[in-house]
């Protein structure tokens, strides 16, 4: 390059400096504006309603009512109890799988992870229906136990606490496993080898080295499951009994039956405060940064944290020593020889446990398929005969066709809108260093953490004023709120693995910023971006809570139509819809997996 042109580029560089500042703000401002208007503003409006009485004057009457009536406190306690047990079960059952996935070779991991994701991807309602088929009075499980002569009268597995536990653990375990896995994958496997060369037996090295290092993942997974569980209502409504009513069901009742907005706002506030308290405790104990898989070492711990660490290390050392005794005992009994290779039995129990849990995760989705071909008019097990009548009914029904096409349209549009807002924001967060970055990230992903019902009710209130209730636009905007955080998270993950030097290389080779973006960066990221789009698409396609409210009962999406039908009567027709959905979702996933592999294969 000659000298004059160097000087010239230096000058333009200086003059574009201010433009670049503007560019910065431009890339993230849509996300802020959108979430500010459609998320923060309506939620504040809703919560504000709880603080005024019928005449519009400031008043605490809703809160007085809330704390006076024992029933609401009871519902809150039940909600906390259900969430806590769900968390415990999801962690206990999910840990072995996450451990297996993180310590196995990459081929096995890739094929197993599809089965973990399977329920994650299959429609939420589909899974819940499947449990109804499996666990009902004359369901598959009771039939099996009956056939094996283990029981005389059917066991009640559904419409009670057991049913809720099974359904919710099943629904939330994949989230738990994936969160734990993201931490476990980063644990250096040499550390366990190092512990064993230093004299630690398998049990000792697991409990003293691996387990403490996996704790941030356990904590993060547990917390995500807990706060998500707090906002559940589909599972308790379909699989639980009257005594398993959760707090969200009360909010829905207040809005739909009593039309008491102020009181619904007060309950929403109660729910939100519970979530925030849990967050605060988590941040104090572990630190929010661990949610993105970062390590906690070297962080100053508070008083509670130090106490927890002390107690934790005593428990862990105890477990380690107990395992060692057990190992010594086994050695005494079996007297292994140093000259003979022993078969590795150590991982067999792990495989058995993991496969059982995986079966638990996958079987429900597959059960709806045979049921959908029944000749009978009710959902029973085993299905009798073979008929395509339910499929014919769906395909001929205009209501189902309308619901399906609306779902497809809304999901595509909200995924696109979510991408166009979320991708620039993700670029901004990964590429720039600035003060308050963590807070900006937290804000952009907060719609995930906010119980969906609060967003739904708040949007309904806002839309009523704007005349957006029952419109496709209203649905699209609502689903976009949920799509943005997922897009931001997935695109940030892709960008972190992107080698920034490729861009720098393009610049030195004479490409300007725009050319670099369109010719280098985006083509390399395209596979990840498409996967991210699919993710957002499925989030919307499967979404029920927001649809339930903002459609205003006028128009309907696929999940909402299924929900409405299920509340009236669970028929094989729903199983057929579920089977079709399953096939469609599988297609979408296989397609995105194919694109992803083709992308990495290059």
């Amino acid at each position, binding site marked *: 390059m000659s000298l004059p042109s160097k000087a010239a580029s230096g000058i333009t560089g200086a003059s574009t400096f201010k433009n670049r500042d503007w560019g910065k703000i431009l890339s993230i401002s849509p996300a802020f504006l959108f979430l500010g208007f459609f998320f923060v503003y309506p939620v504040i409006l809703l919560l504000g309603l709880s603080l005024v009485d019928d005449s519009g004057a400031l008043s605490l009457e809703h809160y007085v009512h809330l704390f006076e009536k024992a029933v609401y406190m009871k519902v809150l306690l039940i909600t906390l109890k259900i969430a806590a047990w769900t968390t415990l079960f999801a962690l206990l059952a999910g840990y072995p799988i996450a451990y297996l996935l993180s310590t196995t070779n990459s081929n096995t991991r890739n094929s197993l992870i599809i089965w973990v994701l399977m329920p994650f991807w299959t429609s939420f309602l589909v899974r819940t229906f499947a449990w109804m088929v499996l666990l009902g009075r004359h369901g598959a499980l009771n039939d099996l136990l009956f056939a094996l002569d283990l029981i005389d009268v059917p066991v009640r597995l559904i419409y009670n606490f057991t049913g809720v536990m099974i359904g919710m653990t099943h629904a939330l375990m994949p989230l738990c496993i994936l969160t734990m896995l993201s931490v476990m994958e980063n644990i250096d496997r040499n550390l366990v080898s190092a512990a064993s*060369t230093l004299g630690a037996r398998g049990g000792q090295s697991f409990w003293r080295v691996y387990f403490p*290092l996996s704790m941030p993942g356990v904590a993060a997974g547990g917390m995500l499951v807990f706060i998500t569980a707090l906002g559940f209502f589909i599972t308790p409504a379909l699989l639980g009994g009257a005594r398993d009513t959760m707090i969200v069901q009360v909010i829905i009742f207040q809005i739909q039956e009593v039309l008491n907005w102020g009181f619904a706002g007060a309950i929403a506030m109660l729910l939100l405060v519970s979530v925030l308290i849990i967050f605060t405790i988590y941040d104090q104990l572990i630190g929010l940064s661990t949610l993105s898989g970062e390590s906690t070492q070297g962080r100053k711990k508070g008083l509670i944290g130090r106490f927890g660490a002390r107690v934790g290390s005593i428990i862990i050392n105890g477990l380690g020593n107990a395992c060692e005794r057990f190992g010594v005992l086994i050695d005494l009994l079996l007297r292994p020889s*140093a000259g003979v*290779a022993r078969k590795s039995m150590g991982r067999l129990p792990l495989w058995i446990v993991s496969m059982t849990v995986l079966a638990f995760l996958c079987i429900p989705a597959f059960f709806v398929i045979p049921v959908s071909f029944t000749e009978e008019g009710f959902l029973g097990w085993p299905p009798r005969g073979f008929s395509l009548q339910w499929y014919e009914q769906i395909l001929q029904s205009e209501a189902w066709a309308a619901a399906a096409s609306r779902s497809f349209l809304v999901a595509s549009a909200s995924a696109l809108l979510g991408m166009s807002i979320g991708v620039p924001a993700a670029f901004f967060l990964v590429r720039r260093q600035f003060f308050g970055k963590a807070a900006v990230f937290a804000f952009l992903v907060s719609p995930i953490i906010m119980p969906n019902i609060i967003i739904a009710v708040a949007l309904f209130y806002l839309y009523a004023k704007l005349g957006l209730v029952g419109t496709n636009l209203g649905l699209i905007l609502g689903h976009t709120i949920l799509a943005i955080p997922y897009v931001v998270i997935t695109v940030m993950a892709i960008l972190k693995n992107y080698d920034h030097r490729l861009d720098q290389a393009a610049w030195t080779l004479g490409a300007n910023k725009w050319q670099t973006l369109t010719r280098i960066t985006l083509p390399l990221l395209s596979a990840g971006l498409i996967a991210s789009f699919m993710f957002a698409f499925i989030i919307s396609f499967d979404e029920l809570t927001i649809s339930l409210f903002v459609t205003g009962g006028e128009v309907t999406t696929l999940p909402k139509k299924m929900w409405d039908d299920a509340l009236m009567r669970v028929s094989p027709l729903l199983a057929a819809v579920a089977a079709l959905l399953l096939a469609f979702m599988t297609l979408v996933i296989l397609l995105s997996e194919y694109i992803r592999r083709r992308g990495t294969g290059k």
Partner: protein
Amino acid sequence: MQKYKLNAINIRKTYDDITALKSASIQLKEGEFLTLLGPSGSGKTTLLMAIAGLNSPDSGEIWIDGELATHLPPFKRDLGMVFQNYALFPHMTVFDNIAFPLRMRKNKASVIKEEVMKVLDIVELGHVANRYPKELSGGQQQRIALARCFVYKPSIILMDEPLGALDKKLRDSLQREIKKLHENLGITVLYVTHDQEEAMVMSDRICVMNNGEIDQIGTPAELYFQPSTVFSADFLGESNLFSGTVSSINEQEVEVVGPSGMVIKGMSKVPVNTGDEVKFMVRPESVDLNALETEENVTHGTLTEVIVSGQITKLFAELADGTEMMSTQLTRTSEHTLRVGAKVSLSWRASNTVILIS
């Protein structure tokens, strides 16, 4: 049979359809420092892992301290291992890291404290006992990894490229430090590296590995001056390697006709016959340029390149048929007499010429 500290016999290891180690045997005497040297994929780490008990060999036997240990789990072998990336436990302080092996051996708390502080003093890092590994520099982490190994006095210490991640200066000083600790503490060390200079500096003996097999074992000097294979000759240091045909044999001294028809006298440790195709090797520092009194082997060429690289100057000459030959000399300020294009004679001793079977 002589009692070795470590005796690995015919170790073979395959992964799926890849043979990582064909059939390797090594013996270590008490207090010896042996280095496994080879390019990546040569099987050196596989052999080390088998000895550590971190993988299970398909066949062969491993004896440690006179006891069979082929399939013993690592925690029963009483070995120490220093890992490539140190493998310090990130959730434990430096003190807890070093105390870990002692705790696993059920030592008393008072003994542990004393031993840990003692070994921390040896590596001169007593002041970082309460810090976490992340808060230390790379060199400090490496010394802590060594301390964690020394503290329980294992009978053998295995080191897997322990200095690979450090910069040159730090590597040099740690090489000397490890060597010093080895001598002072009298420990037996099996070391793995792909850096031939590091192997030469540190080892009592070097085991050159290639393609899952042991190529040659010997002292650094033996390997350097009397390599027995073309691979060893080429891998260690720089060399002039030529092909030729054996023309006459006089006991160990062999005459070879090489490129440009030059007739070279060299030493062969392996039996050869007249007419055999062989390689012969001479180190560049053994080659004199324009010597007044020429040695047994002489050839002529044109100087094509002169490179001053610090202490030594590398001179390249082209022989009549285009073959390139290198000579290295100590760099001297006044050495400007030789210019590119000058006709030069190159000469070297027969005793510095090694005949190798190609």
